């Protein structure tokens, strides 16, 4: 989230699309309800009328996989009706940048596409710069080569008729949605988006979100209270694990994982440190070397020295151009290229797309360690349906983990709040907190490597002093993440003693004098104490629910990021009532003469762009400090699939042609080619669009909720939801068991025939939509006790096809058949 949960209550219009907050983030609905009671409008756009839709002022039912069409139509509507915040767009976004003439868009493809590699050459999408390398721009937005002009042209094709034809949403409903949401473009109004996996899990997932971010920028909704782009994370600590490098392509704090071609630290820092020649651009990532060196110091402590590049070459590198994401790892495993696997706090045989492929892949391993609080379908895969234990070689180790309330540590919620939690009961039996398991594992591996390890430096030199009295110490790790001064140094005229905690990332250095396990969290645990453990209920002076002394939030306790875009060029808030920050410096002769920001921690404490008399200041910085040029990106040249989001059909679609262009699918989507990777073609018997989702009553693959009787009572069985119209065609009665099939597998489930799904009129033909929850699996409840009725995972049906940027699988739009059992 750019904003945070409580802030939702400050919104004037809440769009819930690609998520189902009432059901899957029920507590968030407290704030949605508060906003509604103050007069905010709630819009729900979903293939299915959900519990969220039941509370909405406007509901639009769209076909799974048509979000960009609907959002692209909104961009067209905003531009044509001039509902954007022109001052914001012209000054804070890259709308005025001039695009190079090599950028083109034709027949659904952007320029630079290499058919044989199925890849774009992104250099074709660059900006025109002056001799110093500063982007040329036209803040009047009139030049034909501005981003703004290209934006207008690109989305001119997204007219109501076309969007309706693709999405199935009626033209009048589209207009109602556009009109209501675009009203937040007025200065002082704020609209917010709450999205989740309904947007990410598509072969155009990243572009779904980018498209909305562009709308938010046009309407001036970024950085303001009640605005932002807000991802509702699927677990309480998904944000934290992402920040701390859960993903293969990033080090902690979103630093880049070294590529094989980054053969030394100098090359690494050069490659990943952006350079701006604009004195008004803060270009915050220009600090990359300070953060990467501090990270290496944290990894290797005393052993990290300037002479050995702080141990840079002891950390693994990834091959250039090769992805190592979820789908790729299981693809390699399926091909027999992996020996071992830790399934830690996860259940991939039910949670991953094309779960049958995953189940077969695990069979090829020599060993697997399953760390979980319960046995699950992954740990017991060898005795699952269709498996013959006598033919499976994989040796499985089960390590029982403690549950969350049995351990101390922090979680970081969707709103980026790092919240300290204390241990309640002690872990049961032999179960241990994850920290203890990791600590002991590290110690054991270290001692084995010391004895006769191959290339032993990385392991032997790793700093591993996180125990107190023989147990894992969460405080030691939290302090390590914040970082220390590693020698006595004078910074900003102040003596910082060796071994003291660094006050914030502004103090980190590239010379090895500081360590920080994650620069973004530098400031979370300082000499003043554990900031995440704070529990003050005092609000900030702007009374918008920031509660700055409750827990701690990255970066540097800034509760709403990009907040310097919430003010005009003179530093005064667009919204006087729900202001986030404002400039309160003294004025003399029309000029600011002292620096003072009030409210939230500002995105950099520089002077505003202009003085009260309208003269420009040279000591200011553009507000989007994390972008090289200081401007938010309406044109995004860094994405794998193009600088503007474009509608493509999902990999499995009911249509033979993409009504928007000649390009059928995302041309750079991730697809796989083992015998387990099959994709249904249009015109086959799999003619019903399907999506997976969650219900309130279960969580994830259900490992934690299926063993709970009180929750099983509420949602006892896997079900498929279908419309009354489709049920009639298939002669299916409500409540009877049916079989849902995809080209990959079939699944028995209970039919829920409902008015909440309706057939769509898509490109002149009737298209039916169905949906399945993915919380079930054969292991619980014990099927021997339930008369051998097995409730299986709906991910057996979903395709292993993914987004080219994130490689997240497309489980929210695929094709199925439904028949009587």
């Amino acid at each position, binding site marked *: 989230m750019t904003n945070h949960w409580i802030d939702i209550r400050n919104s004037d219009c809440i769009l819930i699309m690609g998520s189902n907050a*009432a*059901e899957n983030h*029920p*507590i968030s*609905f*407290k704030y949605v*309800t508060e906003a509604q009671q103050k007069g905010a409008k709630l819009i729900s756009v979903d293939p299915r*009328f959900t*519990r*969220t*839709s*039941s*509370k909405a002022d406007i*509901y639009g039912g769209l076909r799974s996989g048509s979000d960009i069409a609907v959002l692209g139509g909104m961009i067209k509507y905003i531009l044509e009706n001039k509902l954007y915040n022109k001052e914001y767009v012209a000054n804070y976004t890259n709308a005025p940048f001039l695009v190079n003439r090599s950028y083109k868009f034709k027949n659904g493809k952007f320029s630079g596409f290499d058919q044989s590699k199925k890849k774009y050459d992104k250099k074709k999408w660059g900006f025109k710069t002056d001799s110093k390398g500063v982007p040329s721009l036209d803040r009047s937005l009139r030049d034909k080569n501005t981003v703004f002009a290209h934006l207008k042209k690109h989305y001119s094709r997204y007219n109501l008729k076309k969007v309706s034809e693709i999405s199935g949403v009626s033209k009048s409903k589209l207009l109602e949605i556009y009109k209501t949401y675009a009203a937040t473009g007025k200065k002082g109004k704020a609209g917010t988006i709450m999205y989740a996996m309904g947007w990410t899990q598509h072969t155009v997932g990243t572009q779904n979100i980018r498209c909305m971010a562009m709308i938010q920028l046009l309407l001036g909704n970024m950085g303001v209270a009640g605005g932002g782009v807000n991802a509702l994370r699927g677990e309480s600590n998904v944000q934290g694990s992402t920040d701390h490098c859960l993903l293969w392509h990033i080090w902690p704090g979103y630093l880049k994982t070294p590529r094989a071609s980054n053969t030394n630290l100098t090359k690494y820092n050069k490659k990943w440190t952006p350079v701006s020649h604009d004195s008004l651009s803060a270009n915050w990532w220009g600090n990359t070397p300070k953060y990467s060196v501090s990270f290496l110091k944290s990894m290797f402590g005393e052993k990290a020295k300037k002479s050995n590049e702080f141990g840079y070459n002891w950390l693994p590198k990834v091959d250039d151009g090769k992805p190592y994401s979820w789908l790729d790892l299981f693809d390699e495993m399926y091909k027999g290229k992996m020996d071992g696997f830790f399934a830690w706090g996860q259940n991939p045989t039910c949670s991953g797309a094309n779960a049958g492929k995953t189940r077969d892949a695990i069979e090829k391993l020599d060993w697997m360690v399953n760390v979980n609080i319960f046995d699950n379908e992954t740990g017991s895969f060898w005795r699952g349906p269709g498996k013959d234990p006598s033919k499976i070689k994989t040796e499985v180790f089960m390590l029982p983990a403690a549950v969350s309330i049995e351990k101390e540590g922090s979680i970081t919620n969707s709103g980026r709040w790092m919240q300290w939690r204390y241990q309640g009961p002690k872990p049961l039996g032999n179960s241990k907190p994850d920290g203890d398991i990791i600590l002991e594992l590290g110690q054991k591996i270290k001692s084995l490597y010391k004895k006769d390890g191959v290339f032993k430096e990385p392991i032997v030199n790793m700093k591993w002093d996180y125990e107190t009295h023989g147990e894992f110490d969460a405080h030691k790790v939290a302090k390590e993440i914040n970082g220390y001064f590693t020698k006595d140094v004078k910074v900003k005229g102040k003596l910082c003693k060796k071994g003291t905690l660094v006050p914030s990332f502004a103090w980190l250095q590239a010379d090895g004098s500081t360590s920080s396990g994650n620069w973004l969290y530098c400031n979370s645990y300082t000499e003043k104490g554990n900031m995440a453990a704070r529990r003050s209920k005092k609000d900030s002076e702007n009374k918008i629910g920031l509660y700055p002394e409750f827990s701690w939030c990255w970066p540097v306790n800034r509760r709403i990021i990009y907040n310097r875009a919430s003010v005009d060029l003179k530093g005064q808030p667009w919204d006087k009532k729900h202001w986030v920050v404002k400039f309160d410096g003294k004025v003399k002769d029309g000029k600011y003469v002292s620096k003072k920001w009030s409210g939230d921690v500002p995105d950099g404490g520089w002077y505003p762009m202009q003085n009260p008399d309208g003269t420009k200041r040279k000591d200011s910085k553009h507000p989007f400090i994390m972008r090289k040029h200081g401007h938010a990106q309406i044109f995004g040249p860094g994405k794998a699939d193009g600088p503007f989001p474009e509608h493509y059909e999902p990999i499995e679609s009911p249509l033979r042609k993409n009504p928007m262009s000649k390009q059928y699918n995302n041309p750079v989507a991730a697809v796989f080619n083992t015998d387990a990777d099959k994709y249904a073609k249009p015109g086959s018997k799999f003619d019903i669009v399907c999506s997976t989702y969650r*219900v*309130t*009553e279960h969580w994830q693959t259900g490992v934690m909720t299926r063993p709970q*009787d*009180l*929750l*099983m*009572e*509420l*949602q*006892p*069985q896997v*079900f498929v939801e279908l419309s009354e119209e489709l049920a009639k065609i298939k002669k299916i*009665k*409500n*409540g*009877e068991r049916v079989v849902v099939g995809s080209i990959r597998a079939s699944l028995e489930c*209970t*039919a*829920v*025939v*409902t*008015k*909440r799904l309706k057939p769509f009129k898509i490109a002149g033909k009737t298209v039916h939509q169905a949906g399945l929850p993915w919380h079930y699996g054969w292991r619980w409840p014990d099927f021997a006790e339930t008369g051998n009725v097995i409730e299986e995972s709906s991910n057996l049906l979903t395709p292993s096809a993914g987004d080219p940027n994130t490689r997240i699988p497309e489980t929210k739009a695929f094709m199925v058949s439904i028949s009587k059992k």
Partner: protein
Amino acid sequence: MTKSFFIDTTLCTACRGCQVACKQWQGLPAEKTVNKGSYENPPDLSGNTYKVVRMSEKERNGKLKWFFFPEQCRHCIEAPCLETAEDSSAIYKDKTGAIIFTKKTKDLVADDIISACPYNVPRVAKNGILTKCNMCVDRVHNGLKPACVKTCPTGAMQFGDRSTIVSKANKSLAKLKRKSSKAQLIDQKDLNVIYLVEDNPKYYFKNAIASYKYEGITRQMAIRKIFRPLTNIIKAVERIG
């Protein structure tokens, strides 16, 4: 002081936290259920279930509505069950206004008590005892809110002194009336559990509103024990309704 619930169905998201919290506090076991083509489960109130969130899909003026109704005992101000039992060791009114069933309800004629209820709430547990929501009086006597109210994330369930609750309910009604002319507080004057609905209560759930009201029989008539033989008629009316 008399306590009341205010259940604003317009805020209910049917998350069913209340259903689970109820069972957890009351120590009630889960029922073995199957999916019968709806999210609603267990299928009915029972000896082990005092609260069920009813869900109903209705098309009104071309607009789909998914109505939610957290069904529970209404804790009537003049409770027909209590009047019918005539035995305060089996059914009595607590100082909070809660209508409490004791173990002695085992000795009552269950059918009489059940059919006296205008909302069809009491059920017979396996041991013959009559059961239903007891307003979590053990919690309320100790200054806590009932478990269902405590867990509600949206503020759909509220609880407090009757006068405060009634004024909250009236305020919410007035606000809702501006949007939905059919908005009403169901049987407000008779009950300590006041539901706000935006449309005909019958669309929410068949027993949302006192059944005999539709047949010209007043509550006062129904609770008078001389009308006890009428319970059979009421039952028949229910079957029709």
